[in-house]
């Protein structure tokens, strides 16, 4: 019961330090025993303090990303990957020939577009913030509302969306058939130069599955014990600062983030309402309800993964948050708590997993340091370990 003992030590020192400082209100900011925290978290993760989550939540531990597995129906194939990469960066997939997938999912902008909401065909403004496509290989349902079940299905949707690429699949097939380079690429990928929407989708999905977050400071910290000598172990262990480790501890405990952001990608892959529905107002977005038509889904959005989150500002489905302190102020206040109007079946209800957190400024800064530690530079083009 190593953990109990160390917590006791932390607690003991906390009491002592508080007594010495005797400034009761600012006590918390001086009471963190960084050395003890590092020790606890340098152990294998099953020895970490238990994550503080609601009893209804079965949170798997945060940790290293697994290798990507490709679906049986669309296995990895190097030439298909290459075709997908080409398609992804080609404006010809849009009616105007101006807008590629990469326009809104740009490597340099964390595979997102850096805008509050995206611009598409004719510079029309969409309603939602473009999410990163890093780690979509590990996703279950796609889009903020989960309306696409597979990446293959997802890939054809922006092409036909009038606000995005505004094209049709028959026109796209016809356009690509006139292009010699594509005939060659399709032949190499599929053994025949027949061009179909299905093949386009499969290639785009294959390419996107290779965009996996780089190793983060958090990953290096976790890998420290596996390093071959003492010196390397030390270097890996110091990848995370004291502040970031404290932030990780808060993320798992007091801040309650693991109620929803858990596992290797930091997402439960479920849908929650944080109170940003803007019901019956400008910017209303009913979220998952639009797809399921279930009243309990009004205002629910998919929990995004958090790896690389610092690269994809502004945040949330509507891009309303431009700095992380602001985003954490929001969580600290318990999100936006809206009283449900029981006479109106569609009136949204904020998740009861969100509660005021009483985090102080240092704790908020520590949480941000942790989010930094899980945000390496944007994924390389084709970074996946292929299985």
């Amino acid at each position: 019961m190593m953990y109990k003992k160390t917590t006791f030590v932390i607690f003991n020192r906390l009491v002592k330090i508080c007594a010495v400082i005797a400034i009761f209100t600012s006590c918390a900011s001086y009471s963190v025993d960084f050395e003890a925290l590092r020790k606890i978290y340098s152990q294998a993760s099953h020895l970490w303090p238990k994550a503080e989550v609601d009893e209804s939540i079965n949170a798997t531990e945060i940790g290293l990303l697994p290798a990507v597995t490709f679906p049986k129906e669309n296995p990895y194939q190097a030439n298909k990957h290459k075709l997908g990469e080409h398609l992804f960066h080609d404006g010809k997939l849009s009616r105007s020939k101006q807008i590629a997938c990469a326009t809104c999912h740009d490597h340099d902008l964390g595979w997102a577009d850096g805008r509050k909401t995206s611009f598409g065909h004719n510079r029309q403004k969409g309603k939602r913030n473009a999410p990163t496509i890093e780690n979509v290989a590990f996703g279950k349902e796609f889009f903020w509302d989960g309306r696409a079940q597979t990446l293959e299905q997802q890939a054809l949707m922006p092409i036909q969306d009038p606000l995005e690429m505004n094209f049709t699949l028959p026109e796209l097939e016809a356009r690509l058939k006139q292009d010699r380079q594509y005939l060659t690429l399709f032949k190499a990928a599929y053994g025949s130069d027949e061009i179909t929407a299905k093949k386009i989708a499969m290639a785009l999905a294959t390419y996107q599955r290779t965009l996996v977050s780089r190793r983060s400071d958090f990953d290096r910290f976790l890998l420290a014990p596996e390093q071959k000598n003492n010196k390397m172990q030390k270097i890996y262990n110091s990848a995370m600062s004291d502040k970031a480790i404290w932030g990780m501890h808060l993320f798992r405990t007091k801040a309650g983030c693991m109620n929803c952001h858990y596992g290797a990608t930091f997402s439960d892959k479920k849908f929650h309402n944080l109170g940003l529905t803007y019901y019956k107002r400008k910017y209303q977005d009913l979220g998952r309800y639009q797809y399921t038509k279930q009243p309990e889904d009004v205002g629910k959005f998919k929990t995004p993964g958090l790896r690389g989150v610092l690269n994809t500002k502004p945040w949330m489905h509507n891009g309303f948050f431009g700095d992380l302190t602001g985003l954490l102020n929001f969580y600290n206040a318990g999100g936006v708590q809206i009283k449900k109007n029981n006479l109106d079946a569609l009136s949204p209800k904020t998740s009861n997993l969100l509660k005021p957190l009483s985090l102080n400024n240092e704790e908020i800064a520590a949480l941000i340091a942790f989010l930094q530690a899980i945000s390496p530079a944007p994924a390389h083009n084709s970074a996946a370990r292929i299985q």
Partner: protein
Amino acid sequence: MSILLATTVSLGQLCYNADHDINSAEFMRAASHYQQVLAKAMEQKKSQCWIISSEKQRQEATLLVSMDATEGTLALK
């Protein structure tokens, strides 16, 4: 006379609308004259307006409104 004018001329109002607030307080980074009243209104979730009575205040109010991503939490009236 001119002193009287300066103290009574109103350059409009800065209004806080609690219903639109997402609690991020991002605009508070630029608040100075309106810092205290805004902080209190936000804490109490109480919608209200304050008179703008100088050019400097008008500039601050305009900046705060432009920093409000919700485009509804703060407004000039």
